[in-house]
């Protein structure tokens, strides 16, 4: 018995990347914008979606990713928007094969934007392509201003950063200038927003960004 070395040169995630490409292709054909919302547990991803869905002028659908429960999907459904809940049963991120299946059961003929709310986690979800047009980093002031540099991959890759809980600035010693200068240092292209999900302050600017992305997608 001897050994031989054989070349492979293949992505570890080749199979999942195929699913992501399928999503991308189908959504281009349908002119649907796909956004992948990523942030820690409690960052305010679901609240941001609720406030967005209440006010926006485009038609939305939501794919909810959670380890367990349908609680987020129930909150979204009460906004009158089609929603599919994926329970990962311990999995710390969504993968494209699951998302493709979920998307195909949504009534996409009446949808302009699909929001994917990823499992609450700043690390792993950034590593998996879901066929989205943009990743959106959602981070709350209560998490502290050091998150961009501690989790650089997400902040480097995303198309927008939404800083939530701006009403808590005075209470949590959040260094706002440091946060935004670190974001800019990692990613000069990301749009930047500050919102308060309780009062709705700042939500309109974020909605306008989604509309801008949607019209870009329709023009391309």
């Amino acid at each position: 018995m001897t050994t031989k070395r054989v070349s492979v040169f293949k992505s570890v995630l080749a199979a999942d990347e195929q699913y992501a490409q399928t999503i991308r292709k189908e959504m281009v054909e349908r002119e649907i914008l796909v956004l992948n919302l990523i942030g820690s547990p409690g960052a305010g991803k679901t609240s941001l979606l609720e406030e967005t869905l209440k006010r926006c002028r485009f038609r939305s659908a939501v794919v909810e990713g959670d380890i367990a429960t349908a609680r987020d999907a129930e909150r979204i459904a009460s906004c009158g928007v089609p929603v599919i809940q994926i329970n990962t049963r311990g999995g710390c991120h969504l993968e494209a094969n699951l998302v493709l299946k979920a998307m195909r059961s949504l009534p996409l003929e009446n949808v302009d934007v699909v929001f994917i709310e990823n499992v609450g986690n700043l690390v792993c979800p950034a590593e998996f392509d879901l066929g989205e047009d943009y990743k959106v980093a959602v981070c709350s002031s209560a998490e502290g201003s050091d998150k961009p540099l501690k989790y650089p991959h997400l902040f480097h890759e995303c198309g927008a950063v939404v800083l939530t809980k701006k009403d808590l600035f005075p209470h949590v010693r959040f260094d706002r200038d440091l946060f935004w200068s670190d974001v800019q240092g990692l990613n000069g292209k990301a749009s930047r927003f500050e919102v308060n999900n309780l009062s709705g302050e700042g939500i309109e600017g974020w909605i306008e960004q989604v509309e801008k992305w949607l019209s870009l997608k329709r023009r391309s």
Partner: protein
Amino acid sequence: MHEMSLVEALLESLLPICEENRWKRVERVFLRIGTLRQVIPEALVFCFETAAVGTPFAGAKLEIQDVPIRQKCGRCGVEWGGEIPLGRCGACGSIEVETISGIELEIESLEVAVDDDEKS
């Protein structure tokens, strides 16, 4: 902790190749993993050893090559490396920055055991 997902994907893509080529035992798996992919090598090895039981990969060694971050300015063409990715070119200030390496998740090659008469 996405290492188990990576190992599952790795085996899913390699097991059919083993079957096709009738490789009964793989000795080493050579991977190239970019710094930006936030993979913990020890966790990856642990997951691999666990998942490989009962397959031709049982007992195989994972050889992980870390690929450092390299970036290039889309305007002035300057290249640089570093611990974290930058969003702005240090030379000309442009935000047209491209990450050219450090994001790899690649199976480079395998070392497989073969009968001497099969060696080619």
